């Protein structure tokens, strides 16, 4: 497709216009209880046109016929001139010209189908040998080629490969059941398999279910809690990342994913103790949420959402940066060729501190260590949240004791972050597919963090 030809139409007919062509190649294999269910393979491309005149319009087509594309461009221009005007001021951004490709050490095209099959089959066999009866495994490689151009001179071409792996395992004993699902993902090639060590991680984590089945509930009450990186990661994502999305704060997601307990005048207000720092950083190389540029052609950067316990910086695209008189911090993303760019997270995590886990445990008289979670949810202003522990242990007098069954943290965002008194040196990431938007857009993210200690929490 000749992007420049269509861009020239937009230059004449819009206040601002952009064209994005996305080609996505996907191969996905799924195993269910020892059987390769099937392979899904696709190689699709489409064009998205976003135009700003009286308001925004967004028109997409995956037709390769020139007449259809021309029709889509004309339609985008026509819709953007709708009667209902809205005062949109886009932030001023530098125009960029770049052509880049993320390296794959072990190229996706060189990693044979047989290798993928034997990888999943070997993991599945090991799980079965360990008496884990219920198993779903999936591995997916994706190569995304994005060509972006706007009427302000930005023209970016990027090729971003990534690998995703998901497992969902259940253990059943005398009607008693425990489940684990985890996702791993990385930008790059099939070096992922060894670098992420997915075989051992899957088997080790799944085997824990058999012990957890035998664990007992502890009496509910107040106690100290240390949460592991999987839990601190989901907390960072749900109760720092989401409430700091400027479109949520403004109410744009009101009828679906909701709004935010944070308001535009909340910057500078305290949300947690001064050891709490939460970051969103798309620039981490090899990360699952890696982006050199966002989907509005803005160079990405690291952001402190909460800094020393204070609400610090919103996630912004050009529309909301313009509204606030700021520059965009490069947070616009789209999950597919046919979906509008909206404000999204990338790699969101609690910044590590200075403690070792041992030091943190030693200073707990009575409490729990919650290494991982199963059920979780949070309300639509990102304030009331719940995390149910999967692998968890009792701590008594500074020592780890027996496993504890499904301890429940049900608390508020401010209570959680205000109760933090120590943060470990560790940092581990887990992949996820973050959902937002209507139509729903699932984007690749990392969530992570260190061990985090909370004092005097009510645990059920």
């Amino acid at each position, binding site marked *: 497709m000749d992007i420049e030809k269509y861009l020239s139409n937009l230059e004449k007919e819009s206040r601002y216009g952009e064209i994005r062509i996305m080609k996505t190649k996907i191969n996905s294999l799924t195993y269910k209880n020892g059987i390769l269910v099937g*392979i899904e393979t696709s190689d699709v491309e489409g064009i998205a046109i976003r135009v700003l005149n009286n308001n925004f319009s967004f028109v997409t087509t995956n037709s390769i016929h020139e007449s259809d594309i021309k029709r889509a461009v004309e339609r985008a221009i026509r819709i953007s001139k709708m009667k209902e005007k809205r005062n949109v001021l886009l932030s001023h951004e530098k125009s960029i010209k770049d052509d880049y490709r993320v390296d794959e050490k072990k190229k996706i095209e060189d990693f044979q189908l047989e290798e993928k099959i034997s990888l999943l089959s070997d993991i599945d066999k090991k799980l079965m040998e360990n008496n884990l009866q219920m198993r779903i495994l999936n591995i997916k490689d994706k190569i995304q080629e994005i060509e972006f151009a706007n009427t302000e001179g930005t023209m970016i071409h990027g090729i971003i490969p990534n690998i995703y792996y998901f497992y969902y395992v259940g253990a059943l004993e005398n009607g008693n059941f425990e489940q684990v699902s985890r996702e791993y993902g990385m930008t790059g090639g099939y070096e992922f398999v060894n670098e992420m060590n997915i075989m051992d991680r899957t088997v080790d984590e799944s085997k824990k279910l058999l012990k957890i089945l035998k664990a007992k509930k502890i009496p509910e009450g107040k106690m100290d809690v240390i949460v592991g990186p999987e839990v601190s990661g989901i907390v960072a994502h749900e109760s720092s990342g989401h409430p700091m999305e400027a479109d949520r704060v403004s109410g744009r997601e009101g009828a679906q994913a909701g709004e935010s307990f944070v308001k535009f005048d909340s910057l500078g207000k305290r949300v947690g103790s001064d050891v709490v720092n939460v970051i969103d950083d798309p620039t981490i190389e090899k990360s699952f949420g890696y982006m050199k540029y966002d989907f509005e052609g803005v160079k990405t950067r690291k952001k402190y959402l909460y800094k020393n316990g204070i609400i610090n910086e919103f996630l912004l695209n050009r529309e909301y940066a313009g509204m606030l008189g700021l520059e965009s911090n490069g947070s616009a993303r789209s999950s597919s060729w046919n979906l509008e760019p909206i404000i999204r997270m990338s790699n969101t995590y609690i910044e590590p501190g200075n403690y070792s886990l041992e030091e943190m445990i030693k200073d707990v008289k009575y409490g729990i260590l919650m290494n991982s979670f199963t059920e979780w949810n949070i309300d639509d202003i990102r304030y009331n949240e719940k995390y149910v522990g999967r692998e968890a242990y009792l701590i008594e007098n500074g020592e780890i004791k027996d496993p504890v069954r499904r301890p429940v943290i*049900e608390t508020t965002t401010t209570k959680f972050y205000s109760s933090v008194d120590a943060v470990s040196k560790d940092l581990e990431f887990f992949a996820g597919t973050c959902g937002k938007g209507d139509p729903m857009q699932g984007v690749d993210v990392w969530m992570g963090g260190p061990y985090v200690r909370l004092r005097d929490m009510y645990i059920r």
Partner: protein
Amino acid sequence: MIDTEDIVNMSLKKGADEVVVSYVESDTKQIKFSNNKIDIEMNYLTKNIYLFLTKGKKVLFTEIQKENDLSSKLDKLLKILDRMPVNDDYNGINPKKQTYAEHQYDGNLENIGDLSYFAKLAIDGAMERGVTRVSGIIYHTTTDILLSTNYNTAADRNISMNYSVRAFNEFGYPGQMAFHTSDHRDLSTRGPDSIAQDAADFAMLVGEAKSGNSGNFDVLFHPLCFGSLVSYSIYMANAFIADTGMSIFADKLGQKVGSEKMTLFDDPTYTGGAGFRLFDDEASRTRKTTVIEKGILKNYLHNHSTARKYNTETTGNAGLVVPKAFQPVMENGERSYADILSDMKKGLFIVNTWYTRFQDVRNGDFSTIPRDGIFYIENGEIVEGWNGIRISDNMLRIFSNIEEVSSETEKVAWWDEVIPSILPYVLVKDVKITKSY
């Protein structure tokens, strides 16, 4: 237009055992508004060819865009199939010759005009009821599908609308309503203005919400709220998921999973809803399938392959690999929801919920977060609006504690939470409510 039969024949000639080709052309218009203003208007124009190939009990699924290099693409795909291990669970696509019901899409829904008109209707409709802010989405979708297999060819056109509106009162507390239709007559009775008014009325009734209490309460679920529980649950009634063992319905066929008041179908033949389907993804004629009858789990949802594994007939719910529910319908009761509410001594009326997550998908332990209208009831009267609560209970216990369902049903569909459904209000006794510490 693509000739799907040609692609089937070409694939068979090249060595495939079974083939499903669907050509889907869709034109979706969408408008999104918030803070009483239109944010963006969108139009998605797509033409997709989906191809499902099997060879010697091996299965592959792909999406194709460039029909001009189809022959070489097919050669490549068939080579991939040769390299795969056998799927012993796979039992073929439906070989029976199908006949289809007559279906005429609603032509009056075809050219309804500018969606911004409906957005304005919704905003004005809500504002007239006294709210301060209105957000929402309106979709209008036209889909043409032509589907061919080794054994059948089917074609249909569907036109539908979905809209949801959330309105906020002066204290910032919301009410919400969401609707689906493929019948233009709904636009005059349950159009975006009417849905918006419902959302606004709930928001106004909430007033300045009080922090709710934990404990066990009888709960009257609005169809929208119950729709979320149904959508998550009926997914686990598809045979593929039930067969993994990780489902509340696994190994429970013929057993009690709900109270006698609970009868749940999947009914894609229900005309007038956005979930209407004439045929499923392998061209089997759709039908009304009883999933739960008077509390007993009667059927899983099947495609031909899963049905063979379970020694039964397809229910016309393909998904080529994973069967799917198209349009849940729950049998209604005899009394109006207003009568049911007026008989409640102490309890809650909940309009909507989200973020339903299971800590135990096998036994049903889960929680979900009510929103958009939580009302505390005493002696049959709404006393006050609440916020900040969570339902932390067990799905099978909730189904078993259904005391009554209303005589009215509503068409509900919302975002990623509620698939198009037709459901009554549902009274459940003794629901566990928790809140944050």
